[in-house]
């Protein structure tokens, strides 16, 4: 079989045949290689956010009141709503991966559409939160930080309130960027999935984007209590 073309099984129903890249011996080897590389990428994502979590742990220890009163200015109801939206999108994404494993073309597209809708809802809530803070003079970067007294009287006399909000905007900003990138990736999956590109014989991109999306959810699971529910 040295020079033969290796393809994966293609189910009935207008699916496209996947040819295994010539440098792989089997479809399994191709799938596992892509997945191991992606898990390593996800490990770097954990370390990226890990540095920010370490900064949070340290400064929360030094200035607990700053974090408590800063966190009290966030609306925990909006944070809880966004947690629900991301958890829902994580479930629909898992169902999308399952649909691709079972060669269910239309269910794959619909589960992914639901995922993107939840992600868009998350970004809308995030936009509302950011713009409210911005209009009240609360934003990242020192030059843009001049909270109005009526909105945030508790910040007066507090040690370095910018510290909490710089962490808030940096952590949720980088996380929000990941949500946007994920939305683009899922939109691409919808487009290719509708063409019958993904099926039981080959669904590697669906699997990898799915893993990425779950990491975005994992990070938010920790961001929500740390930023919105500071005791």
């Amino acid at each position, binding site marked *: 079989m040295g020079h033969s073309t290796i393809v*994966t099984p293609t189910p009935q129903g207008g699916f496209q045949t996947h040819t295994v890249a010539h440098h792989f011996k089997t*479809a399994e080897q191709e799938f596992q290689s892509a997945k191991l590389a992606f898990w390593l990428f996800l*490990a770097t994502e954990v370390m990226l956010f890990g540095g920010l979590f370490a900064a949070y742990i340290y400064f929360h*220890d030094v200035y607990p009141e700053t974090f408590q009163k800063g966190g009290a200015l966030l609306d925990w109801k909006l944070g*809880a709503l966004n947690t629900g939206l991301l958890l829902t999108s994580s479930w629909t994404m898992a169902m999308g991966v399952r649909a691709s494993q079972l060669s269910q073309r239309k269910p794959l597209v619909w589960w992914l559409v639901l995922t993107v809708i939840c992600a868009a809802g998350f970004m809308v809530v995030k936009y509302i939160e950011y713009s409210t803070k911005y209009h009240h003079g609360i934003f990242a970067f020192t030059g843009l930080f001049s909270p109005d007294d009526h909105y945030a009287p508790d910040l007066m006399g507090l040690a370095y309130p910018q510290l909490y909000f710089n962490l808030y905007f940096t952590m949720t900003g980088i996380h929000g960027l990941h949500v946007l990138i994920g939305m683009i990736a899922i939109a691409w999956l919808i487009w290719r999935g509708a063409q019958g590109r993904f099926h039981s014989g080959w669904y590697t991109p669906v699997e990898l984007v799915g893993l990425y999306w779950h990491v975005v959810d994992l990070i938010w*699971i920790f961001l929500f209590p740390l930023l919105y529910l500071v005791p």
Partner: protein
Amino acid sequence: MAHGTDTSHGHGDTVVDHSHHAHVCSFQAFFGIYVVLLFLTFVTVAIAEPVSGLHLGSASMLVAMAVAAVKASLVMTVFMHLRWDTAMNNLAFLGSLIFLSLLFLFTLADHSTRQVADPIGGTPVDVKRFGEN
């Protein structure tokens, strides 16, 4: 090395490779995990001091992080299929969590032992409070 490769389906020099088999979760399993995740989010909010007014002291943050860790492990084992994944993939991802815990451990160790390590040499930090000039 043509393990699992079924040449009987080949046409000409095209070989159909059936070697890839994946674990498929049931709808019930995924939905069950989803409901548990929503419930644990409700628990997180319900016991949080700013919402409930419960005073758990220093345990408050620990409880919140413990619930978050349970949620995260459910996402990792079931949604991300780590439970059925290869040892290598488990090592790649869980390894990052081990290094992350080292980062947190030494960050906390640094903070909690500063006074001990340098009892008189350190100059007290003059904390500038917001609104002061």
